[in-house]
């Protein structure tokens, strides 16, 4: 959802909440630029101008750190598992793929599910033993197990 539209909505909300004769009056009041001025919204708007639309990264992930491995869960419903591309380069893991529309060339009554190509790079907190990386896809959740390289594992040092 575009945040710009949301912000526009904050100012004009009064119009929609009053479905009576007061509508015209309300319309007049929102012309006052400081009436509904919210410093937080203003700050967000300024941030947006610098950083572009505030779009969350896709897919959303969970990264769980365990003693000997790191597990990443990516929420990716409805993807053909053979089209998911996983790449590890250095300390970065890239998840890429495409989520297709259920049908092309038709009119949707609702079209809310995200679709299109995606690519996300995740900085791994540890070096990974690349040959032992595993991945599975179930119920729309992609689970990636990343065993830590030997030198990253915690070690007990015995005091002599």
């Amino acid at each position, binding site marked *: 959802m575009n945040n710009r539209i949301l912000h526009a909505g904050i100012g004009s909300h009064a119009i929609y909440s009053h479905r009576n004769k007061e509508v015209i009056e309300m319309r007049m009041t929102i012309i006052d630029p400081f009436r509904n001025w919210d410093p937080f919204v203003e700050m967000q708007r300024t941030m947006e101008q610098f950083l572009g639309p505030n779009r969350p990264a896709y897919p959303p992930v969970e990264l769980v750190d365990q003693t000997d491995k790191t597990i990443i869960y990516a929420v990716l419903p409805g993807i053909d598992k053979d089209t998911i591309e996983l790449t590890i380069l250095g300390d970065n893991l890239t998840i890429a793929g495409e989520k297709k529309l259920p049908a092309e060339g038709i009119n949707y009554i*609702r*079209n809310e599910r995200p679709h299109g190509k995606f690519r996300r790079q995740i900085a791994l907190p540890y070096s990974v033993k690349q040959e032992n990386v595993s991945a599975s896809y179930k119920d729309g959740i992609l689970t990636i197990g990343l065993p830590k390289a030997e030198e990253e594992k915690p070690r007990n040092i015995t005091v002599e």
Partner: protein
Amino acid sequence: MADVNTEKRIVPPVDIYEASNEVFLIADMPGVKKEDLYLNIENDELTISGKFDGPAEDGKKLISECIYGNYFRTFTLSETIDQSKVSAKLENGVLTVTLPKLEKAKPKRITIEAA
């Protein structure tokens, strides 16, 4: 921190489109297992709900962006839907509900007879 997101109500995003003989409703419900999914039609309303507890793993969460909780959404069915023939399928976290139209609502081609 970990408990903030639990038991949250999630509105699953849907695609709805119409074919000549049926209406398709597709909902993203990642993490829901077949046994945790409920579909119900009552008073011309279709309710879909399901539970996603999140991965049960011990460890420290370094990134936590996923929302766990109960999916819930209700749709009003039009009178052209044959409620007795509704079917559903859950695959890779995506629910597809097929809503067949009643015979009278299906498009019919009318043949023109030669005079």
